[in-house]
């Protein structure tokens, strides 16, 4: 079985600091892997390396069996970056933001095709946002903006979804509906790699947990309950105070 991602002996350094040290990691088709670790443990760095956004200093990365420099089929990967808001400088509707995630699969010039419109509609339906397609993203709630960004990742009809801390700052009720959505996407055959502080509501979905500690993999196996306990991270903005979204950083309005 060819893994979706296969990272071997990966080292990444920023100046003198090593963000990742000799990391071995793989994600098999259909797996649901959660990547855990404290702030600064290298989770986001590793995810960006998998997406080809940060170069490896040492080691090797294969994506769907192809060495990274030769990999071209980016539509197979849907990426949801760590982001507090979907708002930008100029208003954009949910449809337009999701359509941007379709580019790996569509032609780059001219208006979008019917296929593109259908894929965007499906993606918005998957995250239960089909009725909000014309809404400007800046006016949506934090949880809704997050779902738009997930829909954007789904618009390219990917085989693997990579999500960087998608639930931080979303209230518990939305975390649960979000987990249900992810579970459904995984059941349909997509692999999922999710970065999180703690297992939390996604625990029942996870097939494997990988723990990074100061740039090294210190655990790779079944999602043990201890992981849940030892890595619970009390977010400063809890359910009662969803601050990151009521005051979107860099919002336009």
């Amino acid at each position, binding site marked *: 079985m060819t893994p979706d991602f296969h990272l071997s002996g990966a080292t990444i350094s920023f100046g003198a600091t090593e963000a990742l040290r000799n990391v071995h990691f793989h994600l098999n088709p259909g797996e649901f892997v959660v990547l855990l670790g404290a702030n600064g443990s290298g989770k986001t760095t590793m995810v960006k390396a998998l997406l080809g956004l940060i170069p490896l200093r040492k080691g090797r990365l294969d994506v769907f069996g192809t060495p990274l420099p030769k990999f071209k089929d980016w539509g197979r990967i849907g990426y949801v970056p760590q982001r507090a808001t979907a708002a930008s400088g100029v208003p954009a509707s949910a449809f337009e933001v999701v359509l*941007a995630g379709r*580019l790996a699969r569509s032609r780059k010039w*001219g208006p979008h095709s019917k296929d593109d419109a259908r894929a965007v509609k499906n993606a918005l339906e998957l995250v239960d946002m089909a009725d909000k397609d014309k809404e400007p993203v800046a006016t949506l709630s934090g949880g809704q903006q997050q779902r738009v960004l997930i829909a954007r990742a789904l618009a390219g009809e990917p085989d693997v979804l990579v999500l960087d801390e998608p639930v931080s700052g979303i209230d518990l009720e939305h975390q649960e509906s979000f987990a249900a959505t992810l579970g459904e996407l995984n059941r349909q055959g997509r692999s999922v790699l999710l970065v999180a502080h703690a297992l939390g509501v996604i625990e029942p979905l996870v097939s494997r947990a990988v723990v990074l500690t100061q740039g090294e993999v210190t655990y790779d196996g079944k999602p043990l309950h201890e992981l849940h306990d030892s890595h619970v991270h009390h977010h400063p903005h809890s359910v009662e105070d969803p601050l990151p979204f009521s005051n979107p950083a860099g919002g336009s309005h």
Partner: protein
Amino acid sequence: MEILANIWNGFWDTCPFEFCQWAFMQKALVAAALVGVTAPAIGIFLVQRRLSLMGDGIGHVAFTGVAAGFLLDTLPLVTAIVAAILGALAIELMRERGRTEGDVALAVVFYGGIAAGALLMGLSGTSNTNILTYLFGALLSVNRADILAALGISVVVLGIAMLLRRVLFAVSYDEEVARASGISVRTLNLLVAVAAAITVGVTMRVVGILLVSGMLVLPVAAVQQLTRSFNSTFVGSLAVGLVVSVAGVVTSYYVDAPPGATIVMAAIVAFVLASVFARARAVV
């Protein structure tokens, strides 16, 4: 050529206003309209990337280019566009490397551009009047070659902005995700920078170096207060750009003021009206 001249004359004959009969006004109106539609089409991507002042940075470098043109005794417009392109690429590359923050990179280019321009102007012994026409525009003296240049550049820039709108939107909206979709983000950013530079080059003739950025940014800033999507902002900005340009030129005819100033003031009026309207709508 004669047919074109007939169409041109026939068009102006249908215009009921006195100013339409003056050749300098006809050329001014056409040049301003072209710039009015083109500038926001590229400015919208700068606004979206929160690089609203990039047009200013490019304009300041264009000033060095104008001065170099005087010093080398060649067409200042050509050297201005060359300098603008180099400046735009420099800003983009500094920003991309991330070692210099976007605004610091702009600051370096701003002051470097003006200082180098002033230095070269001094060396070439250019008269102050000549300098002023570049700083504040010289719309009433545009000639046929200027209009053809503006037309050519408008077609190219509007073509780029319209044909590549989806992918340019994706890149300006979220560079990282665009890169992770296999889009050549750097090429597109450089393309926008170059398109912005040549737009600044022609816009400079109309409103002047100091007001160039206003044409790129103000129509977008006005319209985006009222719109709900990128597409409607794009279309609306082009329309507002066209209206304020024509209105500005007409106003300048009646109040006898520099058209660059009246065009940008008209854009400011549009911005204020849009703000008031947006507030009123929010209350109701």
